[in-house]
């Protein structure tokens, strides 16, 4: 009887503990507030942090328990809360920034410690390393930009945060201001700016469409490839004169204007059996920058990035597993797809068998039968490479559709699997 009573008592106590679990945690927290951090230092060596030029405020105050529970915790390192939530409990302005439209990925994922030391460090802001080095550890393009001959001063000095907010922003690329407003903080405007742009009023323009804000091989940080009229300063080829009431107005409508020089491309685009949706009506500027761009074709960004911005077939933005943006190493989408229009569905440059054979010469000569005379029993249509290979959906080796090869083969060769053919 006494045993049963004690069991009931413990159970009741445990349920009570459960129900007031938060209060218990609060009690332990409040009781430890007064605890001197020196007790912790009997075992935990934080000398490096204490001597570091940059120290976390609780470390300065030896208030270990503001972040750590000295007895028990649900999170690693006896943290009182999940790391991001813990940081946000003091740094509320960072948490407020989560409402903004553009958030730095480590911030969005609560990985504060990817960039910041938690106790102390050599770099201001408790950064793990100097900003240029820290940013380049993920943004690896920044390293190659340094090899260019013309560097933007803040970039050369490693002051990434002069233009970017490292946590969140209202503007793309985590910019501190939008477009020209950001640049004008240092570069000003007025007559000199206008004179440098053939008399056109550039005030509201987006400078980065023509200028690389980091580095360039060209004077004035102009982007790598320049449109011929732009390079020669013949703005009037495409725009009304600088003195007109609408100086940026085009002399002709989009696609028709481009067709004045690029007639073959525009014709290819709008007359193809399968046309790219963005170019079907001559919407050239969806993909091309009419002034300056990176690489061939004056694209507004690199081919893969540009295509993925709409199609995202490999989860470039979603980061989902088993999805690939590319087929093979360093292949651009335009290796297989005609970006303006094609005679084949999904804008393939030619029929899939011939297209694959341009690279896969060996496989093509010892292939599984394919072609017009070989019928896929599943569909009744001719077999092609695409009958078995997924190309983008690289869930399996050799881009096969099924994760198990037997499953793929038995889809057609049912007699081997014991089914009726």
């Amino acid at each position: 009887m006494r045993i049963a009573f004690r069991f009931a008592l413990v159970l009741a106590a445990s349920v009570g503990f459960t129900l007031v679990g938060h209060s218990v945690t609060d009690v332990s927290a409040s009781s430890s507030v007064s605890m001197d951090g020196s007790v912790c230092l009997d075992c935990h060596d934080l000398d490096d942090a204490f001597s570091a030029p940059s120290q976390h405020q609780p470390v300065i105050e030896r208030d270990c328990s503001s972040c750590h529970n000295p007895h028990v915790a649900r999170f690693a390192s006896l943290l009182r809360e999940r790391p991001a939530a813990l940081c946000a409990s003091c740094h509320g302005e960072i948490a407020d920034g989560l409402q903004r439209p553009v958030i730095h990925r480590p911030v969005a994922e609560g990985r504060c410690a990817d960039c910041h030391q938690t106790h102390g460090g050599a770099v201001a802001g408790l950064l793990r390393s100097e900003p240029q080095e820290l940013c380049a550890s993920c943004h690896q393009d920044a390293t190659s930009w340094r090899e260019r001959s013309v560097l933007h001063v803040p970039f050369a000095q490693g002051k990434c945060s002069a233009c970017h907010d490292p946590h969140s922003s209202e503007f793309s690329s985590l910019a501190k201001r939008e477009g020209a407003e950001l640049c004008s903080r240092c570069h000003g405007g007025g007559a000199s700016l206008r004179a440098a742009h053939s008399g056109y009023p550039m005030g509201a323009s987006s400078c980065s469409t023509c200028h690389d804000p980091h580095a360039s091989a060209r004077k004035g940080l102009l982007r790598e490839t320049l449109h011929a009229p732009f390079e020669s300063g013949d703005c009037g080829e495409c725009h009304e004169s600088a003195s007109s009431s609408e100086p940026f107005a085009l002399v002709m409508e989009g696609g028709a204007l481009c067709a004045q020089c690029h007639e073959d491309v525009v014709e290819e685009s709008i007359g193809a059996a399968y046309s790219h949706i963005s170019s079907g009506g001559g919407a050239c500027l969806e993909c091309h920058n009419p002034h300056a761009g990176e690489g061939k074709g004056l694209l507004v960004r690199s081919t893969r990035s540009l295509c993925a911005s709409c199609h995202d077939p490999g989860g470039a933005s979603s980061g989902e597993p088993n999805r690939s943006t590319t087929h093979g190493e360093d292949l651009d989408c335009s290796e297989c797809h005609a970006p303006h229009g094609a005679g084949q569905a999904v804008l393939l440059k030619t029929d899939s068998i011939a297209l694959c054979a341009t690279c896969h010469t060996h496989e093509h000569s010892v292939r599984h039968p394919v072609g017009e005379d070989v019928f896929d029993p599943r569909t009744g249509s001719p077999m092609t490479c695409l009958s078995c290979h997924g190309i983008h959906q690289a869930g399996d080796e050799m881009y096969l559709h099924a994760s198990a090869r037997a499953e793929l083969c038995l889809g057609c060769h049912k007699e081997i699997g014991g089914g009726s053919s």
Partner: protein
Amino acid sequence: MRRKRLLRLSVLLAGITHTMAFAPAARTQAAPPRIFSWIETVQSEEGLAIRSPVAVTAISERELVVAEATPEPRVLRLRRSGGAWALEGVVPLPAAPVDLVYDGKRLVVALRQPAGLVSLEGSDRAVRRLPVSREIVPGRIAVASNGLLLVQDLAHDRIVELDGSGKVARQTDLPPGVTALAAVSNGGFVIALAAESRVVRYDEQWREEDSWSLAGDDSKPAWPVALDVAPDGEILVLDRHTGRILALDSNGRWIGFGSRQGWEPGLLWFPADLANVSEGLVVVADQGNGRVQLFRQVGKGGGE
């Protein structure tokens, strides 16, 4: 000893109770039901008449029309005769087709620029060029509730309603990147924006009324390329990248789906177009598999 064991048990129980109370609840999302069942593959007895369908429409349950860009621009007319489908005729087109609709009297085909719009009329379905301004570059087309033609103008990112003489009777701007268009019985219309996995409905005044995001499958975002609206307001969406037919009710709620990517009968591979044939019966241009397939929506039109 027994006391100790009981004490340990009670402490363990307390721990479990505590864990359960603080463990985050599993987030479950009810998947919509599969509501489309495969009926048949539409292929002529001769086989391989259909090669790479771009668009499809229905004249009746017994007569379907398919437009193809390759191997050559053409329209295929298929008629059910007895239990099988037969190829009734092939009409060459002057340019690659973009879309195809039936307005109750004639077939209308949107062609790649500069061909514009053509109609196929009469018993022999003779091709007749429709009078349309050359400034209009037709994309998707639909038949409005008043019988007039709705045309997506690719050159100007707008939708226009053309009167009988081909003049623009009404127009409104659209966002760029529209991949599908369908008319609504109240005089409005719906469009799809594939790159945004979104469907937008415009009311009878052609004002944006509602916008719904479409869920992808486990691996890919939805990529809507075709729409049709049933008389009861239900919206059918064809998802090219996942091979699914999605059904939204008139409030935009996702009520069910059918099919998935694949090659077997009933599965779709980069499908290009869909159309309501009759209540609950849907035809899909299964472009990647080079065929046309019919599906029945469970619980509609006598389907089970």
